[in-house]
């Protein structure tokens, strides 16, 4: 049975027709209330993970990175895997807040704030890894070009230095973008709160914002400029990360497909993480009418698209290793799929390529439990993708006498687990202290929030 549907009609961004006051109340409720028992339990779990991170990193700093499983020829392993994984997670946030903004996708308004916050926290997690991977983290300062007594400058030709610039720019721009979006909300919080300390804090951060329409004009313009600058930035960041690999001459890394392949993978994993977290957030904070099932469905469609692009890249990798005519490339490809790390390769393929294909079915796209299962599988798969790219390319290098089967130690696992602790602790603290949905943006897309030039009264 074919049902004719009019796709020219936009779906409501928000279900029901809540008043603006009611939206404020729902979104600000978690900030005003004392933390619930559930919140405390979850926070204690994530803080425990964070402590594991602190302990493992402390041990690493004291004894050196010999504590990890890394050794020649697998000099990059969990640390860089985690770095690329977390940077990738961040990409969905900027995609939602910048690219979908430029494309006038109004449904982004409900999820943009949260996704931007996730970007920042994910990049914080990511930025940690190259620094602890150095073993002597205080030497990271040499990556900044400043006139020092050694008379040396960073090597601006190295992709690793590009990475420093790309990731730190990304973090700064995401923070600024996020803060600009928060200014009107801080003003709302300031005018709602009766507690003197809270009011002072909100006043400082709101900068004295008055919601003036003379200001809104500039504000919207600047938001557009930021979105326009952040869009190429987000594509460039994972491109630069991929150059860390593609500019090397290791078979399995030295490939022109890496930049688009990494960007697609980043958006794929980022959306999976956004979905994972938002599914919990909308239930816990009773925001099913703001973060609706339509949002989840739309994100699932993007996951399906980018998942297929990633699958296509896997196929092209095989083709290129054959087409290149290099025995080393072909060996690396075979080694990936059937070598000692075949288990990781097939976990990656089944999680990333096969599982999102279920999203072709509308019923599955709109089913919360199955979506949750698939997006978690995608997260696992994307972590394994980076693991496979790094470890399986390195463990059998040109010299068979130095082949080595990499095994992570308990500290590797501790730091991986701990980075999740850091991420979710920051997420929880954010959800408790700041509005998880942009008040100003969500109000502007409520039905009747914009003038219909017929004299309608929204709040009546």
């Amino acid at each position: 049975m074919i049902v004719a549907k009019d796709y020219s009609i936009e779906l409501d961004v928000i279900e029901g027709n809540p008043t603006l006051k009611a939206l404020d109340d729902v979104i600000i409720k978690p900030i005003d209330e004392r933390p619930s028992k559930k919140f405390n339990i979850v926070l204690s779990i994530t803080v425990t993970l964070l402590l594991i991170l602190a302990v493992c990193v402390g041990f690493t700093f004291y004894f050196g990175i010999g504590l990890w499983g890394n050794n020649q020829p697998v000099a990059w392993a969990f640390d860089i895997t985690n770095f690329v994984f977390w940077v990738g997670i961040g990409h969905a946030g900027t995609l939602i807040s910048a690219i979908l903004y430029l494309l006038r996708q109004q449904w982004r308004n409900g999820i943009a704030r949260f996704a931007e916050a996730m970007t920042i926290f994910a990049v914080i997690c990511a930025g940690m890894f190259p620094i602890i991977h150095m073993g002597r983290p205080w030497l990271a300062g040499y990556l900044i070009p400043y006139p020092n007594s050694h008379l040396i400058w960073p090597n601006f030709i190295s992709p690793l230095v590009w990475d420093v610039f790309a990731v730190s720019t990304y973090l700064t721009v995401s923070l600024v973008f996020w803060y600009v979006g928060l200014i009107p909300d801080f003003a709302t919080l300031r005018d709602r709160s009766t507690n003197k300390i809270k009011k002072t804090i909100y006043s400082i951060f709101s900068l004295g914002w008055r919601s003036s329409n003379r200001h809104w004009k500039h504000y919207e313009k600047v938001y557009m400029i930021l979105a326009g600058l952040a869009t190429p930035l987000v594509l460039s960041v994972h491109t630069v990360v991929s150059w860390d690999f593609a500019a090397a001459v290791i078979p399995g890394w030295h490939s022109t497909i890496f930049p688009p392949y990494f960007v697609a993978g980043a958006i794929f994993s980022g959306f999976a993480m956004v979905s994972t977290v938002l599914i919990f957030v909308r239930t816990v904070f009773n925001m099913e009418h703001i973060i609706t099932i339509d949002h989840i469905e739309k994100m699932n469609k993007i996951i399906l698209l980018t998942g297929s692009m990633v699958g296509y890249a896997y196929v092209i990798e095989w083709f290129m290793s054959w087409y290149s005519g290099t025995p080393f490339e072909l060996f690396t490809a075979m080694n990936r799929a059937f070598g000692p790390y075949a288990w990781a390769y097939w976990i990656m393929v089944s999680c990333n390529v096969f599982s999102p294909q279920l999203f072709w079915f509308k019923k599955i796209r709109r089913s919360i439990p199955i979506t949750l299962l698939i997006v978690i599988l995608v997260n696992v798969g994307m972590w394994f993708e980076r693991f496979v790219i790094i470890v399986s390319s390195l463990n059998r290098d040109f010299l068979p006498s130095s082949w080595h089967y990499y095994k992570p130690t308990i500290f590797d696992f501790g730091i991986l687990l701990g980075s999740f602790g850091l991420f979710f602790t920051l997420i929880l603290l954010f959800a408790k202290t700041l509005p998880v949905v942009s008040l100003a943006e969500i109000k502007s897309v409520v039905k009747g929030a914009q003038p219909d030039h017929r004299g309608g009264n929204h709040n009546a």
Partner: protein
Amino acid sequence: MPDKKLFGITALFDSPDSILNAAKKIKEAGYKNYDINTPYPIHGMDDIISAKPSKLSYITLFIGFSVAAFILSFMWWTLAINYPLVIGGKPYFPLPAFVPITFEFTVLLGVLSTVFGMIAIAFNLPYNSHPLLDTEYMRNVTSDKYGAIIEAEDPQFDEKKVKDYLMSLGGNSIESIYQPEEIKFKVFEPKFLIFLTIVAVLSAATTYISIDKLMYITPFDFMLNQKKGSAQAESSFFTDKYEMRQPPVGTVARGFLLYEFIRVADTNQFYGNPLLPTKKVLVLGQSKFLTFCSPCHGDYADDNSRLMAQFPPGPTLHSARVISFTDGKIYNIITNGQNVMPSYDSQITREERWSIINYIRVLQRAQNPKPSDFTTIKEFKKESGNVQN
């Protein structure tokens, strides 16, 4: 409240359409200093308030281009001028390899300058003492109401008239906003001075402790505790108990060839000067002579030195005895020292010593010129066109 100065009259509206309508009417009535406050941007309001689009994008454009030019030339300067390095066989100015950082830096500064320009220049924020803040009006317009304000500075402003006018537009909760009392702070308030003192003491103490104490506490003292032998310590490993090892018998380390004539009084017969008195050699000799020799021997080697009467003076180098010294003898004296004069072996390189000797010879000849020298000088001056004397 007669003392307080009126800032403006506000009115609240209930729907986006009514505020749009009110804004239109206020503008048509000829008011200049008015504002519309809404919890989110209302479509179509920009056209009513002012037709001009925001000019902030020019900041982005200007800063973006300037920063791109700056960072590109900075990278070129570091890698090609300041410390030229060939990396990976690439040229000193590999433009494609400079593109990523140029791009990232442009975006970074473009974003920061735009946002700074918006907040500081366009909004004139932070402004937490604005009269509108902390009013019932503001509490409503940041939540769910749409407000309009006509400010007292407006030329047409008349309290009664404006109130009636806003009422007639359908506005409710008409409110008069007054300027807040100005609060002034004195700089020399004792509390503030005490605060400053505490900050100064605390930051000084923190700096002192972190630099002078903390850095010598485990684990930051790892540089001091290295597992290595130091030169003068007793070795528990080698049988002869020396930490510092001797080179194998009959070998000489590179650059450590000993000077053969230590404590040999007369080496006249061993050395001739390997350097000719060219201009380059004499310039080097002059600079080294002025650095190392002149403090005692005088700038013209004539015993008239800066250390006269403070230190045993060096003898003049114009005596018949010194003139009769061979170059090798002088070389030996510089190298080994003589009487009070110490050895300059470690301070003046071999080439510089020979250059100094050439320069001393020039000084000596200048004091005792031969008649032929004058003709040479005259000819030289004629050639160079300088015939005054």
